């Protein structure tokens, strides 16, 4: 089994040790093919690839700030610019979205889900839900200053 006497890649060790450096959100529309030359250079060099945000290790998200949670969760469907996307169905745009005016509505959606939107209540703490909703309500051309609280999240949990 000597060939398995390998070290965990340094990049991974760093991640599990909780590197909190944020790296810029990926706002690129590139094909995997286009990225290959630079990625191959990374893979072949002795240096680990550029710093990457840590990933969750259990059954709950480890991201804490609204910005991190958006970048690592919401962005999957609502897209880096928050504008959503349309295929056979639609992921709604969060930009200047009047449905965010009453904080209880997005809280309920994040915790309990609705139709295509999965429920995240079991994977996020009250503080995390509040953080991501506050982030949405103050970014993407939304300007709602009445922040929601962890106690507000409690009230929508079923």
């Amino acid at each position, binding site marked *: 089994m000597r060939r398995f006497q390998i070290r965990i890649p340094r990049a991974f060790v760093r991640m599990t040790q909780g590197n909190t450096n944020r790296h810029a959100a990926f706002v690129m529309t*590139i094909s995997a093919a286009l990225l290959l030359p630079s990625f191959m250079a990374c893979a072949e060099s002795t240096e680990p690839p550029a710093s990457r945000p840590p990933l969750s290790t259990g059954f709950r998200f480890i991201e804490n700030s609204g910005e991190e949670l958006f970048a690592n969760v919401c962005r999957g469907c609502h897209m880096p610019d928050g504008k959503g996307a349309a295929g056979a169905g639609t992921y709604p745009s969060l930009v200047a979205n009047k449905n965010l005016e009453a904080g209880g509505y997005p809280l309920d959606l994040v915790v309990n889900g609705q139709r295509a939107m999965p429920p995240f209540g079991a994977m996020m703490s009250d503080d995390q839900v509040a953080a991501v909703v506050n982030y949405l309500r103050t970014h993407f051309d939304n300007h709602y200053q009445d922040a929601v609280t962890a106690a507000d999240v409690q009230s929508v949990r079923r």
Partner: protein
Amino acid sequence: MSSEPSTVSRRDLLSLIGAVSGSAAMYHAMTSLGFAADSGYKGPIKLDGDPRGASVLILGAGLAGMTAALELRKAGYNVRILEFNSRAGGRNWTLRGGDSFTELGGFKQTCEFEQGLYINPGPWRIPYHHRALLDYCKRLGVALEPFIQLNHNALLHATKAFGGVPQRIRDIKTDFQGQISELLAKATHQGKLDEAVSKEDREILMQALRSWGALDGNYAYKANLISADFRGYAKDPGGGVGAAPIAGEPINLSDILKSRVWRYLQNFALHTFQTTMFQPVGGMDMIGKAFAREVGDVIRYEAKVTAIQQDDHGVTVTYTDLKAPATPQQAKADWCVCTIPLSILSQLPIDVNGRMKAAIDAVPYSPSVKVGLQFKRRFWEEDEAIYGGISYTDLPIRQIAYPNTGFNSSAKGVLLGAYLFDGPNAYEFTAMSPAERIARAVEFGAGIHPQYRAEYDNGVAVAWHRMPFTLGCAGNWTDKARAQHYDDLCQIDRRIVLAGEHASYIPAWQEGAILSSLNAITRLHDRVVKT
């Protein structure tokens, strides 16, 4: 209501089961009301009686929709299918070199695999008890080959155990079983099981433990040629001078227990994953293509459904031709079989009763991500003697699956480099760009196979929530939602009936889609001939 469970919640537990065992195990746990034996398929469907030229509009050309089209046409119906994609098959899909696809957000990928190599982004294995799917494969001439679920020489990996060094499945399995047998033998010998085991059985139990656990004459599990016959050798038996085998040192029970790699052993024990499993020769989409050979002439591609209405006389479906989106089109029929995923259907205006609409709205879709990686050589075979099968890890990639075909060749090979299902990591990978998913899969995979760094060639990454035609991987029923809504979802509401994996007790499996469809059209046909 409490929101911060201090212990593992049921949902966490299901997520755990899903994470370590794959979707089917989770669903099995979630829907523990036994669908134990096989899937209940009773052979080719018989739709007796004259439909008198009735027409059926089918929405979606996945396996559920094409099954309905094939069987209803055979029974005398006029059938048509509207399909969003420009191909048939739906989630029955294979990516090969030259294939391009664009996910939501505009990220376009072109697969650069060598000729003959592929990845199945959706379903990739068929249990032997999925009798309906197997029967259609037979009837449609789809050649099958074994899918290797258990390869004793593949690996189990825990980042915080064994110094991060992956362990052979055969070692973990044999050492775990052997040392548990030794403990049981000890307890039996000391009379501690006397109340539970009759005197007569005790002797047989001791023999069985010795046989099953590879114990020696003293009922001990040790480094010797008895255990080596099961776990393999430190030095394999050879020929000629110095050829005698040398036994390896077992991994002690405490280390195995603490590593928690024993969790992965259920992936080889669960009914869903028991041998024999199959895959179509050449890629899973051979099934979709075979269906399309039968019913392709009735499929209208690139048709995006926008509304579903019905009245006393029939069903009217409004759709957009994606090549000429300015003018809405309409299709009319007497009846409608709708297989559109609920993630999409829940957003459409559909004229069904309130209970069915509530059911349509009640099922979120699971996140899932698969990454296919091409390597310049088949190092897993050449260096590590891993021929097919799956290695499991607690890294976010969850598993590395080796190709079950093209063995022992010096050509390039494609691995399934990540298969995430449910849980935070599946969402996190979905939120990445495709290039980032691939880079991460390579980075994590190199922790198991260091050859990744030198041998990586190219890759593709499919995040199911980003797929325009499904907006998710599969219907994620909870027990509560199923109890409340499932029957309403499956009812025929006047002229409309739903079908698909989401309308089955085998969600995320192709068998569920086909059985759901056969059940729906049987009931529909019964209504038609009696009307």
